[in-house]
């Protein structure tokens, strides 16, 4: 089966610019997660969806970050006005409710904000 697909793989921005990340989960996985992984740290959950519904976005900086999954399949994470502190790898993961397996990650998008 195909894994989680993310694009782009890399992004370089100036502060104040906007950027969008795209994720295509594993087919049949109803739950989709976005994580932020700063350099030399563990992944930190930003938001996750079950189908098209947001289950938890409490860790998403809501003033500049937004995430959608309108049809319960692909998802987009957007940063409206990037800051240097947003420099990190953004990881998408997916899982299937009731499946006895932890989420599987995509390759990630490495973001650098200059």
């Amino acid at each position: 089966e195909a894994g989680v697909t993310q694009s782009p793989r890399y992004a370089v921005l100036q502060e104040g610019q906007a950027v969008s990340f795209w994720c295509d989960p594993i087919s049949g996985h109803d739950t989709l997660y976005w994580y932020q992984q700063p350099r030399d740290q563990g992944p930190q959950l930003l938001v996750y969806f079950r189908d098209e519904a947001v289950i938890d976005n409490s860790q998403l900086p809501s003033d500049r970050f937004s995430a959608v999954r309108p049809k319960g399949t692909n998802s987009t994470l957007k940063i409206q006005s990037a800051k240097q502190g947003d420099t990190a790898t953004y990881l998408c993961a997916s899982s299937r409710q009731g499946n006895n397996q932890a989420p599987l990650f995509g390759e990630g998008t490495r973001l650098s904000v200059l």
Partner: protein
Amino acid sequence: QQQVRQSPQSLTVWEGETAILNCSYEDSTFDYFPWYWQFPRESPALLIAIRPVSNKKEDGRFTIFFNKREKKLSLHITDSQPGDSATYFCAASASSGSWQLIFGSGTQLTVMP
């Protein structure tokens, strides 16, 4: 508040030795503990996982030992190989249905040939 802690931050062993990576947690409602490994410029990959109903989970050279009373677990890698050199993350989830994982800060393992 760091709910999942890992130690040591970095570990170097010789090829063939056993590497021991430690993890502790605070929330007693955590009921699922996966370990992920991450190679440079790659994303985390699921390695092995355990539930509190067991105190040991083995998969080849990788074994998790779990102590529910002390809220501690450890990953043992026997006969370590240079290809095992990676960062290892311990994670925890309070509900297996949602897989809302909380990750530790990782242990960087280097296996010297």
